[in-house]
């Protein structure tokens, strides 16, 4: 369904520190660093069939986060859900919503954590028990 997801950054090196740390907990490697024709820098992380990109906005205006927007990442265990969150908080992010833990939602039990990246983009780590 998803070809790629891109978020904006106002400080690409700050973003790299954050995303290297959180995606490291998922087992992803170093991003591909790309410079667009316009000169804007972007980082592409490829992992588990998906592509996530952090970019300086190509319109030259500040990056802003969406209100109402969330990007959910698949985790392999409850420990990974917490590690994703904790790595984000330790590398320039901030905790969002409830602390990492088990929720019983309409779709059944899920381990969830929420963290905002240094630019405020909201991320969610999820593990759904088999």
């Amino acid at each position, binding site marked *: 369904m998803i070809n*790629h997801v891109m978020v904006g950054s106002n400080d690409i090196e700050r973003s790299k520190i954050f995303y290297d740390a959180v995606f490291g907990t998922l087992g992803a490697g170093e991003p591909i660093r790309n410079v667009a024709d316009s000169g804007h820098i972007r980082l592409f992380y490829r992992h588990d069939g998906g592509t996530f990109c952090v970019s300086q906005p190509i319109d030259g205006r*500040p990056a*802003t986060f*969406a*209100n109402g*927007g969330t990007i959910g990442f698949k985790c392999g265990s409850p420990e990974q859900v917490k590690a994703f969150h904790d790595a984000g908080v330790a590398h320039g992010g901030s905790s969002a919503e409830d602390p990492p833990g088990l929720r019983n939602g309409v779709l059944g039990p899920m381990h969830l954590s929420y963290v905002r990246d240094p630019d405020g983009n909201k991320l969610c780590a999820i593990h759904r028990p088999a």
Partner: protein
Amino acid sequence: MFTHLLVGTNDTAKSKQFYDATLGALGYDPGFDAGTRFFYRGAQGAFGVTKPIDGQPAVAANGGTIGFAAADKDQVDAFHAAGLANGGSSEGDPGPRPNAPGNAYGAYLRDPDGNKICAFCQLPG
């Protein structure tokens, strides 16, 4: 990598019309209506549109884009046309995208709330 993506809306009816049309062009069933939010399910994840849970207006990101996978050029073209006919605006007409990996063909839209989306396929050959 992804389990789901959410974007915000200030008008769920208008937004559902837009996404039913654009994602319908990519082969997805109409969104499942859960009241203040609705969802489309794919083989490897879900896409949802929601009223922000903080009660504040939905605001589009600057720098953010959600890219949907299309099967072929016809789907990309249909996705873009459906968006323009259902409350969206063009953010890039359908065409080859030589800066993207492979032999990419894509089109960009803004949804009725300003969220930026695109559809991409790989051209044969």
